[in-house]
């Protein structure tokens, strides 16, 4: 490794912003997290030049594992062109000078907020999640002293009671995102606020999944090919969301869709939340019901924003 590898592009900060000691500390934390899947490992989270709650946990993980040969993709709500995804991508281009991409298949490292890409990830890829609240039990028990014990004893009755109460009141479990999972038949874990639609993708995923909560200073992980089960009951099995209609732009089915309001008269359309997936399908000639008029109205995302 030559010395260039240790400096940011403009020479003002260390390569990937964090100093090497901090990176080592985070890597040690990551190893522990991978060794105990789903367990939240406390780490000495640093103040980053972005605000807490805006992805500082994910950014610190990415900064600690990124190398010069990596290709980084950053998404927020499934899309590459959301402002905060743009901001984080710019940050790493500046402090690490790495290649960035919007194409899921070309990325070696994907940092995400609230989504898992539609395309199946591979063993060669790492998915880094930004996590606002790592503790799955926090709504039931706000005290960390208590939740630590509950995890230690696998005492998850509270959570099951909560899910049961949902069913008795509403006929179904009404959690639609941040739907709790059990990892490796041991720890209950927050999948970060991804829609429960994405939960099944976490199970037996070939890619390494890393979770960083900067403000709460916790890191956890799911190693490749790990069992991940969304909590449910035998008579009320887990049901991911389904959409009645395909994507209005590319016609994709079985994907997560965003609702786009088109006017003030209630007209709306549903389009892929994963903008790269949608772009790829349209490039391959797939079209949805409103592909042409949506383009006229300027609703089709521009390609290759940066």
């Amino acid at each position, binding site marked *: 490794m030559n010395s260039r590898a240790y400096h940011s592009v403009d020479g003002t900060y260390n390569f990937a912003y964090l100093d090497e000691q901090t990176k080592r500390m985070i890597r040690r934390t990551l190893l522990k997290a991978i060794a105990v899947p789903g367990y939240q490992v406390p780490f000495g989270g640093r103040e980053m030049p972005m605000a807490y709650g805006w992805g500082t946990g994910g950014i610190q993980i990415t900064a600690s594992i990124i190398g010069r040969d990596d290709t980084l993709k950053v998404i927020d709500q499934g899309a590459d*062109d959301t402002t905060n995804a743009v901001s984080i991508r710019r940050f790493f281009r500046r402090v690490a000078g790495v290649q960035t991409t919007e194409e899921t298949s070309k990325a070696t490292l994907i940092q995400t907020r609230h989504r898992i890409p539609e395309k199946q990830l591979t063993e060669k890829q790492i998915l880094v999640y930004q996590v606002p609240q790592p503790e799955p039990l926090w709504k039931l028990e706000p005290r960390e002293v208590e939740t630590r014990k509950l995890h230690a004893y696998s005492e998850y009755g509270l959570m099951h009671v909560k899910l049961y109460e949902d069913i008795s009141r509403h*006929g179904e479990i009404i959690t639609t995102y941040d739907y709790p999972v059990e990892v490796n038949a041991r720890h209950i874990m927050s999948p970060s606020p991804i829609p429960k639609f994405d939960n099944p993708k976490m199970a037996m995923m070939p890619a390494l999944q890393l979770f960083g909560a900067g403000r709460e200073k916790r890191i956890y992980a799911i190693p490749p090919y790990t069992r991940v089960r969304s909590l449910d009951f035998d008579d009320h099995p887990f049901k991911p969301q389904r959409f009645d209609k395909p994507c209005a732009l590319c016609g994709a089915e079985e994907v997560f869709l965003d609702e786009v309001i088109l006017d003030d008269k209630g007209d709306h359309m549903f389009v892929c939340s994963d903008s790269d997936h949608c772009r790829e399908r349209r490039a391959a000639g797939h079209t949805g019901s409103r592909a042409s008029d949506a383009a006229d109205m300027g609703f089709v995302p521009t390609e290759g924003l940066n």
Partner: protein
Amino acid sequence: MYVATKGGESAIEATHELIAEERRGDTTVPELGTDQVRNQLGRAVDRVMTEGSLYDPDLASLAIKQAQGDMVEAIFLLRAFRTTLPRFGAAEPLDTSKMIIRRRISAAFKDIPGGQILGPTYDYTHRLLDFDLVKEGANATSAPEATATEQTMPRVTDILGAEGLMQAENREEIESEPFDLGRQPMSFPANRDQRLQNLFRGDEGFVLALGYATQRGYGRNHPFVGEIRMGFVEVEFTPPELGFTISIGEIEVTECQMINQFTGTKDIQPMFTRGYGLAFGQSERKTMAMALVDRALKASELGEDRDHPPQDEEFVLAHSDNVEAAGFVSHLKLPHYVDFQSELSLLRGLREDALTTQDKEAAE
């Protein structure tokens, strides 16, 4: 994604230019110098250094200028800079009994060895706008020269301590390697060093409100201002390669020691207990509030009831940091349409189910 946030890159660049222009304001007005901030907005500098947890008046002044006077933003800037600095080690404990004092008061005793020194304070000003300050150069008054007191000024709490009336601090905790909130995550239950570091960095408004709440009955702890002292103290450090202690400079701090009643339990004798507050610069309000909250948080070790938020360490210490709090509150501005979409679908589903049930019941 398709409308509002499209073209994020150019929008971000444009907003950076816009804030730069706004910061400069009307160009016919001379630009604010960071030396002016440092010299003329000293209390703002003190607060930014304290909550930014970095003693550097020049950088704090720069942060205030850059943040257009937004204190929480300035504190964030200083923190984000601080985190990139190498850490050489922990200084020796500050010895505030050797402080070069500018202000020192006690509300517990009429006269104290070394005397009461009013120093610079707004306490006895009438809060009337001074319109003379609108005119430049109108305020070139010079204060009477202070006579440097060579007299020793023992701390009031030490005097009480010598008599055994004041709860002694835990020697073991004092002598052990201090916790470093800048490097280690907060953990609960928290030790005193974690707690005091946290309150030092904690938002002044938040700590003030909690301290105030204790006075109004939410965790009352009968405080007296044992002593507030403000002035300069030496910072000493023992570099491992030297093996002996050297002075590395002087910093201005304010210290407040509250004396609080404690009626005793079956295991602990009645005595006075301490609430401790410290901050960089002249930050009296902050240190007083901090001392009240520090004492409230001693509830569990003293076996007192913990019925109120200021006595609940997870509540206080997990929410005191304004960089964390402001970040997490502001992140609500980030798009949440994926989660919102999920909630929207659920709500539509639940309403549909309810309507179907109603229809069915009506038909029956």
